């Protein structure tokens, strides 16, 4: 058998929240029995974005903030691949914010995991878009990706999980990947993933997380209700986690970008480009110019 690249041992600090995500990705891929050559992980820039190096699957390391655009390209290039984009809060919510909003709107079927630690860990602890007021002198209001995601009216899957709850995280990743593999659309999962070195929030977050599905009135198909539950939870000083939005059911019409563009899932990467077999079509295009 041909020898190919092997995963390397992780370079993260011991105790890093990202280990929880790494374990959950492995478990979810195993549970769904996805062949590793059909899996592509698009990594961002930052500690978390290196996750592709530690997994036995295809990896492509994107530019800072551009992983979503590359993931859309991979998925549209070959819709039969299972694509996971993974990066941090700086990568996704600062430099990559433009692409972040558009990923929901595009609704291509891939999973985007943001490992949110509320800091720029790799550059040694600067304030990030999600940093609390006062962190490293931060005077800007923290950004909430879940509230933003809920405000975009597209049939996406939206969830927040916590590295301190590996069982729930695995469940949510399995559900997201199933959603993707049924070509239903974009799945966004924010993983609260503490940076033990520059912003160790394990204890604080463990005390504050509130599984939103346990609250009365919870309905993941109802954006407005979930939005209100999130606001109420935040007002109580808690952090809402769980599945935040789950489209009602599989619609008869294609909802995902790749199915709208490539109904038979035969993408540009495997399209027939043979000159002989396409000759008649090319002749027609040429004569359309006459």
């Amino acid at each position, binding site marked *: *058998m*041909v*020898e*190919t*690249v*092997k995963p*390397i041992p992780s370079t993260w600090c011991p105790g890093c929240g990202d280990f929880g995500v790494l374990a959950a990705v492995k478990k979810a891929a195993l549970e769904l029995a996805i*062949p*590793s*050559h*059909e899996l*592509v992980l*698009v990594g961002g820039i930052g500690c978390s974005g*290196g996750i*592709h*190096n530690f997994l036995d*699957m*295809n*990896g*492509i*390391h*994107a*530019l800072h903030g*551009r992983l979503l*655009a*590359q*993931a*859309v*390209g*991979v*998925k*549209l*290039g*070959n819709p*039969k*691949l299972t694509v996971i984009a993974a990066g941090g809060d700086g990568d996704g919510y600062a430099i990559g914010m*433009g*692409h972040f909003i*558009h990923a929901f709107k595009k609704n291509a079927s891939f999973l985007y995991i943001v490992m949110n630690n509320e800091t720029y860990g790799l550059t040694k602890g600067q304030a990030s878009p999600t940093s609390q007021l006062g962190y490293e002198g931060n005077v800007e209001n923290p950004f909430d990706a879940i509230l933003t995601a809920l405000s975009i009216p597209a049939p996406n899957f939206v969830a927040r999980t916590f590295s301190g709850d590996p069982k729930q995280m695995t469940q949510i990743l399995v559900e997201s990947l199933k959603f993707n593999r049924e070509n239903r659309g974009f799945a966004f999962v924010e993983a609260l993933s503490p940076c033990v070195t520059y912003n160790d929030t394990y204890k604080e977050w463990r005390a504050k997380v509130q599984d939103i599905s346990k609250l009365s009135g919870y309905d993941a198909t109802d954006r407005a209700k979930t939005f209100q539950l999130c606001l109420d939870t935040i007002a109580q000083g808690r952090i809402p986690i769980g599945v935040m939005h789950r489209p009602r059911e599989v619609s008869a019409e294609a909802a995902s970008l790749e199915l709208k563009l*490539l109904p038979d899932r*035969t*993408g*540009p*990467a*495997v*399209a*027939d*480009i*043979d*000159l002989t077999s*396409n*000759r008649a*079509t*090319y*002749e027609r*295009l*040429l*004569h359309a*110019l*006459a």
Partner: protein
Amino acid sequence: MTTPAVSSTSTISAGTARQAPASFQELSDLSVMIGGQGGDGTLTVSDLLGRYFRRRGLYVYSSRNVLSRIRGGHADASVRASKLPVAAEKATVNLLLAFDHEAIDIGRAELDADGLILYDSSSFQSDAPDAIGFPFATLVGGQVGQPIYKNTAAYGAISIILGLDPILTSAVIEDRFQRRGAEALEKNLKALEIGRRLALDRPELVGRWSVADGDAHDRILITGNHAVALGFVVGGGRFFAGYPITPATEVMEYLMRYLPALHGVARQAEDELAAINMIIGASYAGARVMTSTSGPGLSLMTEGIGHAGAAEIPIVVADCQRVGPSTGEPTRHEQSDLSHLANLGHGEFPRLILAPGTIEDCFQLTGQALNLAEKWRLPVILLLDQALCQNAVTAAPFDLSAARIDRGDRLTAEDLQKMTRYGYYQYSAQGFSPYAPPGTPGGIAQVTGNEHDEMGHVSVNPVNRAKMMEKRMGKMVEVVPELPSPSLYAMEGARTGIIGYGSTWGPIREAQEILRHQDLPTTFYQARTLFPVPTPSLGPFLDSVDVAFIVEHNYTGQFARLVREHLPEHHRKLRSIVKYDGMSFRAPEIARRVQES
């Protein structure tokens, strides 16, 4: 002045126009300019005339001069028709059609000594002594109901003045408007008749000229943008992402229309950062990809192009140059991105810059760019310019049987089974590595813009770093024999060289003829590869001449600077002929500047 002056050829009467050779003048190279406010339909008139002349076997070159706005502001279009191949605007205009005062003011400067001004007198009167006014909009508004068809009426009047064949004149209208439905077609035909009548009632105008027939039959009339788009499709291009930007947008629009039927995808992205990264993703997935953009978009794509160079992901970027920097002049012509592209990005990585000069080049070099990118695993820039991208020119239908597809060392699952080891960055003699798109059983790989070892593991090992730099940069040397060769146009005994690229091909070819008539034979090197600087062919070319003029549309002589840097032994021979006013060269200007030096 309400009564237009009678032209000097007024002795021709309507009945005898075609039998009055005394003042009958046959044009074998003519130019019609149509000017007005944006929305007046100037482009429609030039399109109709272009279609007519093409069907008479003439070579056509149609250009436009519009402002960056949807309506209003001066806009003009020119159509040139010639028995000989042309790919540039004619120096003077034979017939000027004006829908407003400004069009007369602007067009008059370019009018031939024997030229004629025709204008729509519905809303203004020109006091130009030689201008002929017809109330196109008023009459069309009254009889057809909508004054917007005034442009078709004007086309009708022109058809009489130029002695065009009436049957073909209407057939062209049918061609153009059939798609819009029966009502639109009928109204246009009515308007055509109104315009024809107006001119026929003026005996001195009937058959003022006639237009020679040509023998260039079965030609297509096509813009560079459409030729690039078609070259992309035929070259196996199946994924495109772009962002609307003048003058590149037509590439995207064409591909959005035609790619879906071929399992292809063309997407409008949220910005150029997304567009370049989407094509990087799709290329990595195994598709042949391209984006098209212009200056401001190119600036944003710079980080992505560098990434593709470092991560060895093949991409093609078509840069339809316009006036820069910043927003510059979106609709105007310039060739000022070369210095940026040759040095583009932080760090060092290989990139190729190809420069189509003719419409055939646009088609052919796009296919070649895809082959080079995919085989050599690097970014390839197609350097275009506004005139080449947007002006339409007649061409022989492209030779589809000459197209070739080279996917380089692309591996299948069976190939992988026979190998002992597969890494995305494996060393090879020529610098490019075999690759298996994700999804290929047995072909798992890691791809990254971090420095990496052969297997794609991140590495800062100094020995590895040096080897990887040499692997990537070595491609720039190894690829040279496969790069597009220049087109050479040598006249006997020439010791004067002209060097150009892009749309300057057309005016330079004509300037060569002008200079030949002035007893100055020249030899023209049309560079089709700009970077790496084509020293293997350019060196011998410079050896063969005493002086060489490098013609380009920028202030600093960007290609001249590259040539000086790479062929320093010839620097005394090099002269720059530059133009940076936003307008493209016309042949007499190049000829004059060669003579003056």
